[in-house]
C-alpha cells in the first residue's frame, strides 16, 4: 500500500513535468 502511494507520487510527478513542458513550449511559441 505504501508502494501504491509511491506510485501515485510517480504519476503526479510525471503529470507535473509534462504539463510544465507543455507550458514551456507554449511560452516559447507565444514569444
Amino acid at each position, binding site marked *: *500500500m*505504501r*508502494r501504491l*502511494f*509511491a*506510485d501515485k*507520487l*510517480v504519476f503526479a*510527478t*510525471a503529470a*507535473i*513535468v*509534462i504539463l*510544465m*513542458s*507543455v507550458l*514551456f*513550449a*507554449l*511560452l*516559447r*511559441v507565444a*514569444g
Partner: protein
Amino acid sequence: MQLRYAAHGAVWLILYLVFILAPLLALLAGSLPPTRDFWTEFSVAIGYAGLAMMGLQFGLTARFRYVTEPWGEDVIYHFHRQISLIAVSLVVAHPLILFVIRPELLALLNSIEAPWRARFAAVSTYSLIALVVMALWRAKWNIRYETWHLWHIVLAVVAIAAGLAHMVGWSFYLADPWKRALWIGLMIFWIGLLLHVRIVKPLFMLRRPYRVAEVRRERGDSWTLAMQPDGHPGFRFSPGQFGWLTVWGSPFKITGHPFSLSSSAEVTDGSVEMTIRNLGDFTSAIGDVPVGKRVYLDGPYGAFTIDRNPADMHVLIAGGIGVTPMMSMIRTLADRGDKRLVILLYGSKDWESITFREELEALKARLNLTIVHVLANSPAGWTGEKGFITAEMFKRHLPPPYADHEYFICGPDVMMDAIEKALGQLNVPLSKYHSERYSFV
C-alpha cells in the same frame, strides 16, 4: 510525530520538483534563441526535464537520512525505479518527436557522419536504455548484484555526461554562459550525490569499523552476527530499522547489503546484531565469518519502527526471516519493561525452521506477548494455524476493532501483498499499517 514526517515529506517532494523544473524554466530567462514550432519546443523541454530527473536519481539512493525518513527506504527505492521509467521515456520521446516532425533528422542516426553533439545524444539514450533493461531483467538474467550495481553506476554517469555534452554541443538554449554554467553545475551536483554515497560515506565507515564478536547459528538456516564498535561508540537505533553491512572487503567496494538489526535498541554499549538467512548467494558464507573479523556498518535507516507509531497494542506479522526487525522490537519492548499487548503472527516453512523459536517462547515471561505460528508444512498432530496468513486468522486472533491497532509487516513480497489486501478487507486504514520490503534492492 506523523504530522512532522508528513511535513518533511512534502518539503522534500517540492524540492525534488524544483530541482527538475527550475533549471528547465531558467532557460526561458535572459536572451532567447529563435522560436520554433510547439512540438520541437515540447520535445526539447521533456529532454531537459528527463535528464534532470535522471540526475536526481543519484540523490534518491544517496542514503540521506533526512530525505528518506518520512517515507522509508523501500518506498524511496520503489520511487527511484518507477520514476526512472518516466525519465527514460521522456528522454527517448525527445528524439522520437523530432524524427516525426522533421524526418530529415533521421540522418543523425548515422553515427559515422553525424556531428559529435548527435553522437553524444545517441550514447546517452543507448546508455539509459541499457541501464533500464539491465535493472528490469537483472534477476531473470542471473546477473550478480555487485556486477549489475557497477554497470548501473557506469551507465548512469555515461548517460548523464553524454546528455549534457549533447545539450552544450547543440548550444541552442545553453548559448548563454550562465545557462551553460547552471547545467554544468547541476551535473557536478548530481555526480557529487553519487560521490557522497560511494566515497564520503565509505570514508566515514572506514573510520568507524566494527568487530564480529560472535557468529551464532539460528534455526531456519540462519546466522546471527553480533558486532561490537571498534574504537567508537557506535550508533543508536530504533527497533525495526536496518543497516548496510559490508562483510567482505572495504566499504568502497559495492558489497554492502541491507539487513535489519535484530538486537534490542536498548543495548547501550553500541553492539548490534543482524540475523541473516542463507539464501544461496553471498549469504551462504555468513556462517564462515571468523570471530574478530573487521566489518563495516552504515546505519541506522528506515521508517519501519514502533517508536514512530505509538499504540495501545502492536500486531507484528512476519514471514520467514522477516522476523528479524520484529525480534528487535520484541527484545526492545522486553528491555523497556513494556506491558502493552504484542501479538506476533509468524509464518514459517515448518516447525523446525522457526528462527528464534525458543527465545520467543522465553520472552513471553517478560512481555504481554501472544505468538501465533503459521506453518506452511505442519507436522502430524499440529493444531495451530496452517498455510499462509489470511484475513480469517486476524479475526481469530486479534481483538476488534481491528482499525485501532498498529500493524507491522515484514516478509516476502507475495506474503506482504496478501496481508495488505487482507487488512484492507478489515477496513484498517492505510496509516495503521507499516511495512518493510527487504527485497527493495
